[in-house]
């Protein structure tokens, strides 16, 4: 299984905010055990999705030159469970960006269970949770010694997310 906990960016405003979507499919391995007969998305993985949305926002702000690692979840609240079949929307706003690190405010919404509005999830969405997430930029000199030039954080798939977002935006605008 690949460690991707968002499916696509819906909006991306460099250095400011981002919105991503995560579809919860019953076919995902996580639901086999969490829980049999009652597929609840683990809150930790919702946080991971928010952190990936926020981490790419932070990484892009420095052209993916920094190794952005999740350092601290300052605050997190969950209001309800998210079940298989739901479509989660992750909204992240950049609060601080400095050479040493960054912080973001994130919120998760989804259409209420029993009243899904597929394709227009924002319309009747209710809050699933919020979190403030703190990222550190790994010290360049030190991480160079440990990892070399390779940026293991933004090595491939996470960075390709933005490419997918661009394709979707073009299609939406009727371009080819």
């Amino acid at each position, binding site marked *: 299984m690949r460690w991707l906990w968002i499916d696509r960016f819906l909006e991306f405003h460099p250095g400011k905010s981002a919105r991503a979507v995560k579809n919860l499919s019953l076919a995902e391995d996580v639901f086999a055990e969490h829980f049999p007969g009652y597929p609840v998305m683990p809150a930790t993985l919702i946080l991971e999705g928010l952190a990936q949305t926020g981490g790419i926002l932070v990484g892009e702000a420095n052209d993916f030159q920094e190794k952005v690692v999740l350092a601290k979840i*300052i605050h997190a609240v969950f209001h309800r469970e998210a079940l298989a079949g739901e479509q989660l929307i992750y909204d992240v706003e950049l609060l601080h960006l400095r050479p040493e*690190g960054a912080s973001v405010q994130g919120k998760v919404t989804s259409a209420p269970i029993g009243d899904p509005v597929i394709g227009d999830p924002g319309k009747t969405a209710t809050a699933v949770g919020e979190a403030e997430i703190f990222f550190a930029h790994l010290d360049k000199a030190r991480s160079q010694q440990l990892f070399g030039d390779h940026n293991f954080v933004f090595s491939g798939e996470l960075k390709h997310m933005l490419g997918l977002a661009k394709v979707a935006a073009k299609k939406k605008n009727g371009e080819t």
Partner: protein
Amino acid sequence: MPTQDEIYAKVSATLVEALNVDEDEIKPTATLQGDLGAESIDFLDIVFRLEREFGIKIPRGELFPEAIFQGDPEFVQDGKVTDKGLSELKARMPFADLSGFEKNPELTGIGDLFTVDMITRYIQGKLGN
């Protein structure tokens, strides 16, 4: 300009949020790492919050200098900070109370200079300018 008490109250509230500690754990002499359990990443969080709370800019390494001595033998010998090291500390951190540290300048004790009072004095100095 806010009074020292007002600054202290805001600094306390900031630390309660950043370190998830109870308000009654915050005392002027409380050390961030020893008494309040701060880890290295918390220092950056504290800096972000102070900037937002007081509307100031805190340049990197000004409030919490990182690796002040870099293993320089002129500054540290046998695990103790030398006189030259002490004057370097005073120059870099004029807002820190070094009176206790000077009596027993063990390098490992530097973390104890980071107290609630120290942050309050730093902010006072920043706002005064």
